[in-house]
């Protein structure tokens, strides 16, 4: 059942589609509206005026505007997981089934108990909280702040994850036109006719801007009809992209614009596969900003009462939406647009009870218009106060002559003049300029490639806007190399637009709101000035003026003008706060696009992934890779059991691990050896063909960057590996060295990480297993293919492969590489042929256990602050050559022999568990910072030794070998004794490698 039947809807008026009746609810009450309505216009059509409560004083608020600058009519739209807080009813497009709720009220909109804040408001002046709530200190977090936090905020975030999807897109054009009012349309038309690629974007669901809102004619047609004809022509150009429901929210460097398209906000639920919104990065060679101008209110007493509305919004509701926003109106103005407002009100059957104009002498045209309609004119007068509570009941008018008078009305149409919507022009740092004749700021110097047109530039008057748009559009296309002439200017009149600056009625005893959303009053501005907050930025920050969701579109200039009056400075000397992106608020989800949940970052799969998945592997995220962590067998319920079994199998028989994640880089060229000598600390040019060598690279600042192996396949051909984590960094570094440091060297660098499936085959039976897959006549005997040998060969009957006799595990081991497409086959074959040896696949956990048992350093030790000496690799550095990092590694702080070094640790109580991150303290010392000797970096339970083992950095390591220390771990309540030992726990002589 509908509550009321759109009692304020005007017959035969507006651009709504009366054939589509739409049901919606507000605060649970059902209403109807039409397609083409906004939520605000539909509410007004149903006579609803009270829409929200204000931020601080919880005062009743209605609808002030008809656009995206709305400070008051904010609602929670939709419900459940789709709940959208702070949605401006003035731009929310009506759809069937729309649900909206008022916000920031308790228990209901009409009875808000927090309105009591209004009664104590004398004490809640601007910044009062900086002066109190200080005693006792502990009460701030416990009492005062929770109270403030609960009261603050507006709507509520959705209670669960956003169920809708978002998308990102990029578009290129020669000319981007932002705004489709008269000027924007003509700009787009001129550019399109010249053959330019044009994007025309408008935040509304309908193109036309003010042409839809004002009763004007262009070329003898109604505004809407003329718009339709232009849009039809624009559509006929293949190079034109028309984007409605698209807000260009930010201008960034080099012609890049951020825009958000509301793809499916006008339906209840987006269709399958359709995103709710789409983020556009628009790259424009030239842009035309034609976002129009926004009307500003005049500040007077109780100017926030529902029923006080911008005059331009009154016209929009009448003309575009066919709604009478009131029954009896008072028009309060300082400019000539009052005439249009009066005409529209009268034509809509609204009684105009008075025209109050701050100007002492009105233009004759306005006077005769008023006379014609029998409207009382108050010249040189102001509306000092709106009367009424939850809706306006009258206006108290004070003229320069006579006593104050009260005029009954339910609508006060207010206009204080216009502010060009220049925000986007300032995003790259240009400052606006003040124009006294317009009593407004206009765009200043513009970023390269940007032009402004129409009322966004301060050009008022329909004919002038059309003309300027045509010229600016043609100029933009011409600048892009197109032969362009301005489109013929359609016939239209310039409306009079004279304005006389007027900001604030100071003759009221009531609260007069400057920033309606943040409840900043004229008294707050006065107080801030009195306390010395006289910079416009101080005013903003102290009072919160302009910091609401409209970024002060309806309040900044008024506040600034009031401050200027108080300080005696001019407005331009007072300055203006900077507008920042976004132009209007943008859903956070849209800025993330599809990159959330599992798609936050891409997932990289190893060549044996499918096989490992079949095998029941548990996977772990390693950077962007998904790697097998361990391979539980049926019956194994504890990861440690599985990992110990994998390690033992490798140590006693053979295991296979996918190490394809290592970075792999081909280094070619006649100077390849020379080049590698300069990037590794050790010699690589002396490496024999068919051999591999462990290598370490430093950053230029002398700190260890990465380690890996270099294999030499020919005089001019090396193959190097990097750690999984540093693959990209090392490639970038090598390219830097090649291109910038030593451009004369003949070196070619080719990344091949993805080319090779690379598996470690490790354990005493590794050779036996490999013998089964290596094609004859390749000899893999220890004599023919010893430790650190490498070779190119074929396996499995002709598959090209590379074999490396390398060991990370400490066992006799190989790494075998095959082209990645054969990786799956190779793994399956190794598993089946290895059955007789009891082969096991092993994952990253077992890999880590064995490297710790062997004392190999890895990521936790290569932490970006350690030198190779710290890592126990100081002797590797060649003294016969220069290499990256050599010079700066000699600085005293890095060459200091007392720096902490890597050593091994084992628990004194063999059953005790070691913890990474524990700190070392001398056995009898207090666990305080001055006694801190170092910290544990890597730990593992060693199945080979039957107890935990660890690596860590220890100050004075050499003199502490064998010492018993405390390993304290207060964050995990652990404090145990450990013995300092060699970092190599297993096969210290390396005998097992070489068999």
């Amino acid at each position, binding site marked *: 059942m509908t509550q009321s039947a759109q009692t304020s809807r005007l017959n035969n008026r507006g651009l709504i589609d009366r054939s589509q009746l739409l049901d919606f609810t507000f605060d649970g009450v059902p209403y109807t509206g039409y397609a083409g309505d906004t939520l605000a216009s539909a509410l007004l059509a149903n006579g609803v005026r009270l829409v929200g409560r204000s931020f601080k004083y919880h005062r009743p608020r209605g609808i002030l505007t008809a656009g995206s600058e709305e400070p008051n009519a904010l609602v929670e739209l939709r419900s459940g997981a789709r709940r959208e807080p702070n949605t401006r009813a003035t731009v929310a497009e009506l759809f069937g089934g729309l649900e909206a709720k008022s916000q920031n009220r308790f228990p209901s909109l009409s009875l808000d108990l927090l309105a009591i804040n209004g009664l104590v408001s004398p004490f809640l002046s601007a910044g009062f909280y900086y002066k109190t709530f200080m005693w006792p200190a502990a009460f701030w977090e416990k009492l005062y702040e929770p109270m403030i936090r609960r009261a603050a905020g507006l709507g509520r975030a959705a209670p669960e994850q956003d169920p809708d999807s978002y998308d990102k897109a990029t578009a290129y054009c020669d000319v981007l036109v932002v705004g489709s009012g008269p000027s924007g349309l003509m700009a787009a038309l001129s550019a399109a006719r010249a053959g330019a690629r044009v994007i025309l974007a408008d935040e509304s669901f309908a193109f036309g801007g003010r042409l839809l809102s004002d009763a004007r004619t262009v070329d003898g047609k109604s505004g809407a009809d003329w718009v339709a004809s232009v849009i039809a022509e624009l559509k006929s150009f293949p190079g034109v992209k028309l984007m409605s429901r698209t807000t260009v929210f930010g201008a960034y460097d080099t012609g890049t614009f951020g825009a958000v398209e509301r793809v499916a906000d006008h339906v209840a639920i987006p269709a399958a596969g359709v995103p709710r919104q789409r983020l556009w990065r628009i790259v424009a060679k030239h842009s035309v900003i034609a976002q129009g101008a926004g009307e500003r209110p005049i500040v007077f007493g109780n100017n926030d009462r529902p029923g006080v509305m911008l005059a331009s919004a009154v016209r929009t509701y009448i003309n575009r939406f066919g709604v009478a926003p009131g029954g009896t109106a008072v028009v309060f103005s300082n400019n000539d647009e009052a005439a249009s407002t009066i005409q529209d009100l009268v034509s809509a059957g609204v009684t105009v009870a008075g025209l109050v104009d701050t100007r002492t002498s009105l233009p004759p045209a306005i006077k005769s218009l008023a006379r014609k309609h029998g409207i009382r004119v108050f010249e040189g007068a102001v509306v000092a106060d709106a009367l009424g509570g939850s809706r306006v009941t009258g206006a108290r008018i004070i003229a320069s002559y006579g006593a104050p008078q009260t005029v009954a009305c339910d609508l006060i149409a207010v206009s204080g003049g216009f502010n060009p919507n220049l925000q986007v022009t300032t995003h790259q740092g240009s400052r606006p300029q003040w124009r006294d004749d317009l009593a407004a700021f206009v765009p200043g110097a513009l970023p390269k490639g940007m032009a402004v047109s129409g009322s966004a530039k301060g050009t008022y008057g329909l004919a002038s806007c059309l003309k300027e748009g045509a010229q600016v559009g043609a100029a933009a296309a011409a600048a892009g190399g197109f032969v362009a002439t301005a489109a013929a200017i359609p016939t239209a009149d310039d409306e009079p637009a004279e304005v006389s600056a007027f900001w604030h009625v100071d003759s009221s005893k009531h609260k007069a709101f400057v920033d309606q959303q943040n409840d900043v009053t004229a008294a707050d501005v006065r107080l801030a000035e009195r306390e010395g907050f006289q910079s416009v930025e101080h005013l903003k920050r102290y009072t919160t003026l302009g910091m609401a969701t409209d970024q002060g579109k309806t309040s900044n200039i008024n506040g600034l003008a009031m401050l200027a009056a108080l300080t005696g400075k001019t407005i331009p000397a007072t300055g203006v706060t900077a507008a920042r992106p*976004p132009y209007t608020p943008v859903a956070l989800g849209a800025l993330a696009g599809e990159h959330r949940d599992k798609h936050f970052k891409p997932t990289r799969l190893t060549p044996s992934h499918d096989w490992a998945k079949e095998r029941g592997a548990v996977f772990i995220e390693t950077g962007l890779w998904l790697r097998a962590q361990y391979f539980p067998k049926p019956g194994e319920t504890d990861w440690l059991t599985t990992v110990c079994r994998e390690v033992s199998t490798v140590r006693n028989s053979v295991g296979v691990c996918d190490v394809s994640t290592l970075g792999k880089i081909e280094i070619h060229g006649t100077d390849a050896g020379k080049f590698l000598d300069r990037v590794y600390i050790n010699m690589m040019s002396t490496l024999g063909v068919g051999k591999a060598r462990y290598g370490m690279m430093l950053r230029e600042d002398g700190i260890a960057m990465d380690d890996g192996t270099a294999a030499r396949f020919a005089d001019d051909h090396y193959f190097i590996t990097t750690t999984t984590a540093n693959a990209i960094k090392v490639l970038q570094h090598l390219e830097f060295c090649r291109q910038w440091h030593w451009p004369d060297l003949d070196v070619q660098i080719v990344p091949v990480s993805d080319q090779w499936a690379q598996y470690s085959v490790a354990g005493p039976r590794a050779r036996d297993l490999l013998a089964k897959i290596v094609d004859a006549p390749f000899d893999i005997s220890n004599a023919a293919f010893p430790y650190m040998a490498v070779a190119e060969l074929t396996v499995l009957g002709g598959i090209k492969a590379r074999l490396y006799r390398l060991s990370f595990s400490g066992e006799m081991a190989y790494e075998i590489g095959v082209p990645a497409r054969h990786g799956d086959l190779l793994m399956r074959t190794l598993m089946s042929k290895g059955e007789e040896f009891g082969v096991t696949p092993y994952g990253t956990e077992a890999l880590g256990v064995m490297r710790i048992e062997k004392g190999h350093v890895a990521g936790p030790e290569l932490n970006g602050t350690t030198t190779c000496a710290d890592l126990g690799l100081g002797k590797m550095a060649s003294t016969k050559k220069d290499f990256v990092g050599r010079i700066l590694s000699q600085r005293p702080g890095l060459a200091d022999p007392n720096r902490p070094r890597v050593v091994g640790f084992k628990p004194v109580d063999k059953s005790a568990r070691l913890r990474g991150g524990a700190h070392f303290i001398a056995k009898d010392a207090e666990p305080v910072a001055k006694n801190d000797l170092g910290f544990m970096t890597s730990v593992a339970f060693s199945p080979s030794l039957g107890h935990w083992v660890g690596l860590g950095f220890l100050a004075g390591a050499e003199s502490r070998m064998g010492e018993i220390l405390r390993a304290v771990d207060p964050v995990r309540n652990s404090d145990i004794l450990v013995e300092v030992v060699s970092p190599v726990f297993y096969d210290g002589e390396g005998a097992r490698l070489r068999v």
Partner: protein
Amino acid sequence: MPRSDRYSIFSVFLEGLRGQTGWGPAWRKASPKPSYDVVIVGGGGHGLATAYYLAKRYGLTNVAVVEKGWIGSGNVGRNTTIVRSNYLLPGNIPFYETSMKLWEGLEQDLNYNAMVSQRGVLNLYHSDAQRDAYARRGNAMRLHGIDAELLDREAVRSMYPWLNYDSARFPIQGGLLQRRGGTVRHDAVAWGYARGADRLGVDIIENAEVTGFRLDNGKITGVETTRGFIGAKKVGLAVAGNSSRVAAMAGLTLPIESHVLQAFVSEGIKPLIDGVVTFGAGHFYVSQSDKGGLVFGGDIDGYNTYAQRGNLPVVEDVLEGGMALMPRIGRVRLLRSWGGIMDMSMDGSPIIDRTPTQGLYFNGGWCYGGFKATPASGLCFAHLIARDEPHEVARAYRLDRFRTGHMIDEKGMGNQPNLH
């Protein structure tokens, strides 16, 4: 003197009854005197705090702060308001803990409510290695007597049940929590210190841009400003973001690059996030202001710049992190984004030291840790200027540490400022 100079619930009540007419300026609009004992260049948080502590702790009241625009116009008014002392390295921990303790007593000290709010800072971890790195950090804090707790996944879940636990690309494993960490109302810090310094006799001179330094025999004698020459026995620079530019006027080259860090605030919503949460698998950290806005940020844009604005790719990167961590905020809207220029030092840690010019002292290189450091930075800089020797908790912040190889590199990124 105005009727209500001391701030309290009583004065607020009294002024409420009297139409708020008895308040005077929070700080005088001072004009420069011919000379001072100390001139601090930079009316940001650090400069104002330095002046305050010079007067309050070191008895130097013939002090001026010169500011090129309005006080607090730099990073003290552009940051994401977080305070914490959860540092890793011994060169940093005592300093930031000194700062934390000063925050805890700030309001009573200044008689100004800067809304120091200790609602906890939680750094999430997403892997075993990250957990151990946080354990190392947490343990280092505990050894310094600072609170730190290592939480597991369930403990994190009980604090923030609606983060993404079930469909995350990098699942949350736990977090390092410092309960004493939190947020402070940033502008109020500048105003509070300004008011405090003013009441002790310090001249705060706004709209006076320094255009040069006057030297005599290698010793500083004063600063040239757009409001004329101001003589000074000692000059302290606290102009982070512009350090290189200002120091260049004194012939100094600094191990600092200027980079932009973007910050963001959403529309106000009812309480959602109590403390500060940082994502460990992406560039995103967030808290909620008392007004209800989600205040968040991510990584710096990564190129040298003096333009106080960034570009779109970083905006997207930050929000991708945000949505990955908290997919509930998808329909909350971004209200405003802005950029602050960071003094990125070559090891990610600050510099508080003498310069080769006698009487000229330098404070800068704060990277994006400057706000939380404000009180200790002011105290230590005041100590250095007054005593001509470093404060004991700021001894590591030497200008020459890069030359000697004694870097304080928390992140291990080396001399690459855009990676810190």
